[in-house]
Every structure is written in structure tokens, then in C-alpha cells.
């Protein structure tokens, strides 16, 4: 009579440590070998025990406690909110006042210029067309290739230069581009 001390193992040796897991069933559901059947069964017979709060459901007993931890005092929250908006309002008023002062200074300066020299005044009032090309530029563009022409046309005075390096906290990984040279744009 052989008494087996070893636990009889139906699985082959290689697969003994690996547990086959079916992802078609949720916790508490019996898994069959067919995941399609599991899905169909879940939709035909949905669980009707409502003991968990869900964000979209109507039973939410956990909300009050969570809110109390997040916002311990409504009065404090409102006071902080009002103080912050007040602070922002002060900043806004200061900026607006400074802007107004600058505008008034500019207006005063233009009035005085008008009295002093009317030709310079007219020159100062001329609107600048940012896409205007000077004669020198037009001449230079005749001998340029297509990509160079496009590059010249897209660079408008007053815009950010395309080659501007965005300031970062740490230096670049690939080091500094020491061989970089600025694109020569003929100016008026």
C-alpha cells in the first residue's frame, strides 16, 4: 500500500506556480471557460445588491465625510476666497492705473510734438505695415531659394523671433549650439 505523502498535483510541473486568471469575470462572479458567456450573463442578470456608493448613483453616504475633511470650515473657505479676489482686484487696479498713466503720458507727448513740429508729428502717426518689404529686401529675395524666400516672408517685425530659446530650469541635454549663426535678414 503506497501512501502518498506528496500532495497529488493535477497540473504539470512547469505550470504549478502559475495561476490561470480569467479577466472576463468580476470579483465574486463564477468564471466559466467562455468570456463571452460571462459578459452576456452579467448583462442579463445584473447584480441588484446596492451597497457601494458610486459617483453617478444616488446613494452617496461617503460624500459628507469627504467634504468635511476637504473643507473643514465653510466660513474659512469663503473668507480665503474673498481675500484672494480682493488681492487680485488690487493688482488689477494697480496695473490698469499704471497703463492709464502711460497712455496719458504718451498722449501728452504727442500733443506737444504736434505743437512743436507738425511733420514729425505726421511721421509719428503713420501706421506701420508689418508685412512691408523694403527695396533692399526685395532685391535680395530675387536671388534666394524658395525655402529662404518663405523664411524671409514669415519673419515679421515685432513678432517673437522663431529661434528664441525658451528659458528652462536646466541646461539642454545636447549642450550649447556653438556653431549656430543667426539668419541674416536684410533690413531697411
Amino acid at each position, binding site marked *: 500500500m503506497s501512501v502518498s505523502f506528496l500532495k497529488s498535483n493535477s497540473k504539470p510541473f512547469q505550470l504549478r506556480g502559475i495561476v490561470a486568471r480569467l479577466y472576463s469575470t468580476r470579483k465574486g462572479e463564477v468564471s466559466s471557460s467562455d468570456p463571452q458567456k460571462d459578459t452576456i450573463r452579467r448583462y442579463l442578470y445584473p447584480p441588484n445588491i446596492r451597497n457601494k456608493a458610486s459617483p453617478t448613483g444616488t446613494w452617496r453616504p461617503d460624500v459628507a465625510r469627504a467634504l468635511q475633511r476637504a473643507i473643514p470650515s465653510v466660513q474659512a473657505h469663503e*473668507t480665503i476666497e474673498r481675500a484672494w479676489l480682493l488681492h487680485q482686484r488690487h493688482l488689477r487696479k494697480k496695473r490698469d492705473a499704471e497703463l492709464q498713466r502711460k497712455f496719458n503720458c504718451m498722449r501728452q507727448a504727442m500733443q506737444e510734438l504736434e505743437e512743436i513740429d507738425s511733420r514729425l508729428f505726421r511721421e509719428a502717426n503713420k501706421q506701420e505695415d508689418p508685412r512691408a518689404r523694403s527695396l533692399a529686401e526685395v532685391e535680395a529675395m530675387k536671388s534666394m531659394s524658395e525655402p529662404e524666400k518663405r523664411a524671409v516672408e514669415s519673419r515679421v517685425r515685432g513678432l517673437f523671433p522663431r529661434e528664441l530659446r525658451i528659458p528652462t530650469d536646466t541646461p539642454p541635454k545636447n549642450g550649447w549650439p556653438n556653431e549656430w549663426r543667426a539668419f541674416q535678414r536684410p533690413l531697411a
Partner: protein
Amino acid sequence: MLALRHVQPRALGLARRSTTKQVALASTAVDTDGSQSQSSGEPVTPQKKQSRAIRTRRPRISLQHPREWNRPLAFGVLPAFDEALKVIKEDSIVLKDEVKALEGAIAREKETPQPDQHALLVLENKLRILEVQSEINFPQVRWKCANGMADMSKAVDRHLLEQRWRKEGALDLLMERIHQMKVVPDVLPHIHPSLDLRVNFPKVKSNTGLQAAVSKAVYEHVEPGVFLLPEQTVEPPKIYTTVFHPEERLYTLLMIDPDFPDETNQTFQTYLHWLHVSPSPVPNLNTHTAYIPPHPQRGTTYHRYTILLLPQHSRLSIHMIAKDKRAGFDVRAFMEKYGLDRNVGGGAHMWREVWSEGVPAVYKDILKTAEPKFGRMPKADRYGDFRGKRRYV
């Protein structure tokens, strides 16, 4: 450091009663349980996390049960709150200096031989706004107004109460009911209330039985537009107002029923139930045109009863309206005659009523007339000639 998450719910309760010192003690205690009485000698046992019950109802604070304002969180619990209080205090000081300067400017302008009225008006408006702004951010001021302990002599409190009435739903509800029930085109062309008018009628004790039992002492607030029983409205209501102006102004009280049936013209007419003109020598509101209780006739659909408080621009002497002139009362003509339509503002309220078993009592005791019963005219019987006769002869 401090386990702030644990401390906060307890700090709430403690800050209300005790000073900052006790809370600091609690926050540094080893056990986060609410009890502070554990001495150092006793062993600190790991206690189960006790879940404190969450307060879902507002505490019962009002003028009748007053309470002092305390900081909601003690100093140091929430640094943002302390910083906020500092910012608000600094802003208030700056504004109060501006208020003082403005008051000086107004006084000087008034002393001049020919004060510029327009400039004075502008300055006074600005002064009012600054007075309110200098105090409106303080949590103690807002807390007092939110808990029924506002001081109506202060501009801030008046402003806060008015904002609450206008923005938190009370005025919106009243206007919704007034417009949905079509009181606005029927009684008056436009109503823009400027004061909070509240009407209280006795509570209904039980609806069963022939006549509803109505409480004699307990008066309940009436939501605008709801149905009331004629048994409740036999006595004049208790009227409460919250006005947002500090000076005394005169108002005329008017109670109208726009759905009184007019048999001769087969239409409806307006019936005047109550009229009272300010100023009255006695605080009794029943000294002018006495209150006649609403009596919606049997067979008519519901009646809308409207109470209006119309602002008077001066003292008026209006004759008492006679009993036979109450039906067919023209509200617009009355207002035009006495100049009541020129001013904006005032107050309004309305409710609805339908015939019930209490109406015959009103007709018998107060009106002393026979109770009418309305219904459709009896239709002529088309086949009257043929009834009872043999048809197929």
C-alpha cells in the same frame, strides 16, 4: 509635525468654546482622541478611530438664541485663513481712511454758499459704497447677517440682507409666482419689489371634517402662490417686512382679488379686500378700509389674492372705500389719482384660494348677504317635446 487632518474636526468644536491654548494642547497630544484629560502617567493605549457624527443641520442661532462669533479655525490651523484675515484687515483700514476723507469733503461741500448738488450726489453714492466695502469681507459681519443677528442701522448689514433676499431665491420665487399666475398684467402693469414682504396666516390643524380646524395662536409663513383655505384667512394676516432703507418711508397697503365674478358682464372684476394708508395714528392696520376676508364663490375657479405695499411720496389722506365700491375697484385709476404709480419699489405677495366649507360662514357673519352659487346656465332640452311620447307609431 501636527497631524492636521486629525485635528481639524476637533478644532472646530473646541475653537467655538475655548481659546487657542487648549487647541494647541490637543494638537500636540499623543492620542488623537477628543479627550484631553489623559495624564502623562497613564499608558497610551492605541484606541479605535472613533467616527464623529457629521452635523447635517444648521445650528439654531438667531436673535432669540444669540451666540457670539468665534473664529471657525484657531490661529495656525490653516495659514491661508490667517493671511486672508490680514489682507482683509489692511484693506478695511485703507477704505476707512478713504471714508473719513470723503466725509470731510462732503461736509466742506455742504458748507459752501452754493453746493453743487450733482457732485454731492456722486460723493454720497461713493461714500455709501465705500462704507459697505470696508466691512463686507469680515467673517464676523457676514456670520451675524447669515444667522439673523443683523444690525439694520449699519449699511453693511442692510446690504448683505438685501443681497441675500435678491440673490438666494426669495425674490426670484415671488416674482416667478407673480408672473406665472399673471398677477402682473392683471392687477398692475409692472411690479418691481424693493422690500421683503412676508405674510403669515394661521396654521391648519386638520383638514378632515366639514370645516378645517385652524390653529388660533400658531401663525405660519405663507409661500407666494400656494393655496390657502378660507378658514385660515378669516382674520387679517400678520405682515412682516424687511426694508433696506434707513430713513422712514410711507407705504400704502392694498389687498386685491382680481378674480371676483362680474355676473352682468359675464367676466371678472377686481375686489378690494383691504386698504391702509400711512401714516396711521395707531399701529393697527385695520383702521382705514377694514379687512374683509377672502370669499371665493362656489363654482368659480381659484382666486388669486394679492397684497401690495405701494410707496407714497408724501403723506396722503384717502377716503375710506365704501362697501359697495369695493367690487369693481380700479387699481390703476386709484394709483394714478393719488400719485402712487410714480415711485418704483414697494412690496408684493400673493396666494390662491378656492371655495371650501368655511366660505358660507364668511357670507353669513361678515358680508351678511346670501351666498351665490355659480355654474353653467342650464341647457335647453333639445328633445324635450319627444320625451315620454311613443316614437314609432
